[in-house]
């Protein structure tokens, strides 16, 4: 057997004259877990799409099991035993689990007609392979993210897959679900299946992978054994920059709280929540996915008003029945899903930045163009949003830069309290550091910041106080000094 199961050598790809891949090489051994890392836009998704036949390479060779592959189509990739699990899982939310599982094999077999009995059998065998318990007749759209991913994995396994590519598989998973996923990955490895694990999360790369490859701006930067790698090197490979971890220490905390929450309840989600936050503090709220943390955030921004309890802002009782109420009281909110809740993706970067403060940028009844442009320029510079032109659509930016726009939008309104739900989900390391630095400097300037996140290192690094939710109740509260990852985890589970 050859040393490598898969080799892609010196691959180049241009999009409208722009280099997306500049002679990259990726080599995967049989039965290994290989991590492909790199910041957003580094070309890793492009390479995956070339391997799976969605794009065609402009030059370079691809070998699989010692044979050179000429033109790859989605179907031929599957036939060769290469399976990709995309970030969106490439599934059909409107069809049943059974059909989602079986339909690919029907297509590969070039079936024209559908035999529902066969489909059920195929689906049953597929889930049995990794011991996944699921109702085959359920609509896929009704499953949780983790279950959808398992369906995608089961589906991938059906074709005698030899190489499974997982594109950022842990993005939307909780800690527990990631653990379960890793177990499955190890199971696959035991069956001598190679896994290409695409991720930019340090801890995951170290935990699961044996070898790694890092791309930056379409170029191969490094490749080798994960054992020879450390945090610092890895971050440097990814970003080309060196970072210093800066643990947040509040400089000056105001005397009176900006926000006080007393006995806040929302039926079915959380109850008896008591806390307060002063200007200059960063409060971290953490908990498992269904701990009520998201609902609490939504209540504080008026999107899901609480059933009972009190919310005091600057000592005065406030009724937050809608986002408008919250904005009037000086609360800003960066939602969990910035794509659907926080951004107008098809609109320009500039418009996205000024949308919440547009009322202040008017001359008479009309929008003041000059003022608007100055404001946009100011924020693009202040948050170093990487764009050649603020008139470009927000969708042209990477996740990190998009998150900066959402931030800019709120900062432009000068909130007293900024609530961020998962501020760095799906954001690359470089931007993550930058966003953390921005949040810390905001607090230093006297803003009260609440970070809701299940990324414990993020919480520990940036928060002066940490509150933990479990099953809708407060299960613990620590100061930054006494908190450790283990202490928090104990209170979370």
């Amino acid at each position: 057997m050859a040393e490598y199961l898969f080799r892609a050598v010196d691959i180049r790809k241009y999009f409208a004259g722009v280099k997306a891949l500049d002679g990259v090489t990726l080599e995967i051994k049989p039965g290994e877990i290989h991590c492909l890392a790199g910041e957003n836009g580094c070309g890793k998704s492009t390479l995956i799409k070339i391997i799976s036949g969605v794009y065609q390479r402009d030059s370079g060779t691809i070998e699989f099991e010692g044979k050179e592959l000429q033109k790859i189509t989605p179907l031929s990739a599957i036939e060769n035993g290469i399976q990709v699990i995309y970030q969106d899982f490439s599934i059909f939310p409107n069809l049943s689990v059974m059909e989602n599982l079986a339909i690919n094999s029907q297509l590969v077999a070039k079936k024209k007609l559908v035999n529902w009995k066969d489909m059920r059998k195929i689906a049953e065998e597929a889930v049995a392979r990794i011991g996944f318990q699921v109702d085959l007749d359920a609509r896929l759209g009704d499953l949780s993210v983790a279950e959808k991913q398992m369906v995608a994995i089961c589906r991938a396994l059906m074709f005698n897959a030899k190489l499974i590519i997982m594109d950022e598989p842990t993005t939307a998973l909780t800690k527990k679900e990631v653990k379960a996923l890793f177990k499955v990955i190890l199971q696959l490895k035991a069956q001598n299946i190679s896994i290409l694990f695409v991720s930019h999360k340090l801890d995951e790369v170290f935990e699961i992978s044996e070898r790694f490859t890092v791309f930056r701006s379409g170029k191969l930067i490094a490749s080798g054994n994960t054992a020879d790698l450390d945090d610092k090197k890895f971050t440097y490979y990814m970003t080309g920059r060196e970072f210093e971890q800066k643990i947040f220490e509040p400089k000056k905390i105001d005397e009176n709280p900006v926000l006080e929450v007393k006995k806040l309840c929302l039926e079915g989600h959380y109850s008896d929540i008591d806390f307060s936050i002063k200007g200059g503090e960063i409060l971290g709220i953490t908990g498992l996915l269904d701990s009520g943390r998201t609902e609490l955030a939504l209540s504080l921004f008026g999107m899901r008003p609480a059933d009972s309890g009190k919310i005091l802002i600057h000592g005065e009782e406030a009724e937050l029945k809608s986002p408008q109420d919250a904005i009037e009281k000086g609360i800003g909110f960066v939602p969990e899903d910035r794509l659907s809740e926080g951004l107008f993706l098809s609109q320009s970067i500039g418009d996205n930045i000024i949308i919440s403060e547009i009322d202040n940028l008017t001359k008479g009844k009309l929008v003041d163009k000059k003022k608007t442009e100055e404001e946009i320029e100011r924020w693009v510079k202040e948050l170093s949003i990487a764009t050649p032109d603020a008139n470009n659509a927000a969708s042209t930016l990477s996740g990190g830069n998009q998150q900066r726009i959402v931030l800019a939008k709120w900062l432009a309104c000068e909130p007293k309290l900024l609530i961020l739900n998962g501020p760095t989900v799906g954001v690359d390391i470089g931007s993550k550091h930058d966003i953390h630095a921005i949040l810390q400097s905001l607090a230093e300037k006297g803003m009260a910041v609440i970070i809701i996140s299940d990324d414990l290192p993020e919480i520990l690094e940036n928060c002066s106080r940490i509150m933990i939710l479990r099953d809708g109740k407060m299960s613990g509260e620590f100061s930054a000094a006494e908190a450790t990852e283990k202490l928090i985890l104990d209170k979370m589970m």
Partner: protein
Amino acid sequence: MRVKTNKLLKQNETYIFLIILALSFLIQIRSGQFYTSNNIVDIMSAMIVPGLFAIGEFLVILSGGIDVSFPALASLTAYATTKMFLDMGYEGSVFLPLVVAILIGAVLGAINGFFVGYLNLPAMIVTLGTASVFKGFMQGTLESKQLAVIPTGMKNFGTVALYTATNSQSGLSSRLPIAFLMFVAVIIIAFFILKYTMFGRGIYAIGGNESAAYNAGFRVKWTKFLLYVFAGIVASIAGIIRVCMMQQCHPTNMLGMEMNIIAGVVLGGTAIVGGKGTMTGCILGTLLIVLVENSMILIGVPVVWKNVFVGLLIVIGTIISAYQSEHSGAGKGNHKKKEETA
């Protein structure tokens, strides 16, 4: 058992069926004329043409597209075919005109399919454009005018009754034309395609997640192309049947039907964004529209109010489905669509 009732309660079809039932009882009470054999037959024959159109539209909407060109397509096909066979002095059966109409319909559908499938242009814009072109071609190039006479074969096809019902009270009798069989046949074929062919499952798959369908190995462009060809064929069959049943060819009288047909399909629970819907729902939704269009007069509602009722129905139908999805998708924050397969 519980589970079954629950499932029924979640389906649009159930509600549409109940509304149809309620409406029929109302008409029956007010006029005593609904559950008479000739009225039922009248409704059945009134269903043929809208029903056929609805099937074509249903498949297109299911794939995530939309077709507003079918009335123009059907008009052009029917007119061209009728005119051609009239000029030839054709005396044979309906078979040949039907074949010619199907061929023309397939070609016109292929034009839609090419733009939507292969060039990946928005279906709404494409079909708005082709509708205009088809109409213009018919009125300009073919100089269409009303044809008071149609070939004998077609005439016979429109008059031969599959079944004749006579109302014992009023003495009125209604004929169910043999074309009803074609309607039934198309229903069965479409149902089979949707449920038992990879092409049909591909329509659902594309409507649910187009890029996933491509990744899975579906030939997305080809499937869409074929789909519009099929829709063209079904629409042209409807066009010819309409001419046969009316015993004359009126080039513009089908134009403008698209809104009510789309309304019927959506009322029947088909998601306008694609991926979700059933054949049963499509037929029931169309039946409801046909009922309102034809039977309001029986309860003494003036014809001018018809549109108001159709409009109300659409709004109510939308409220019901919105209400359902809100209740099934509660919690978690991700907006789940409630999906249904054939």
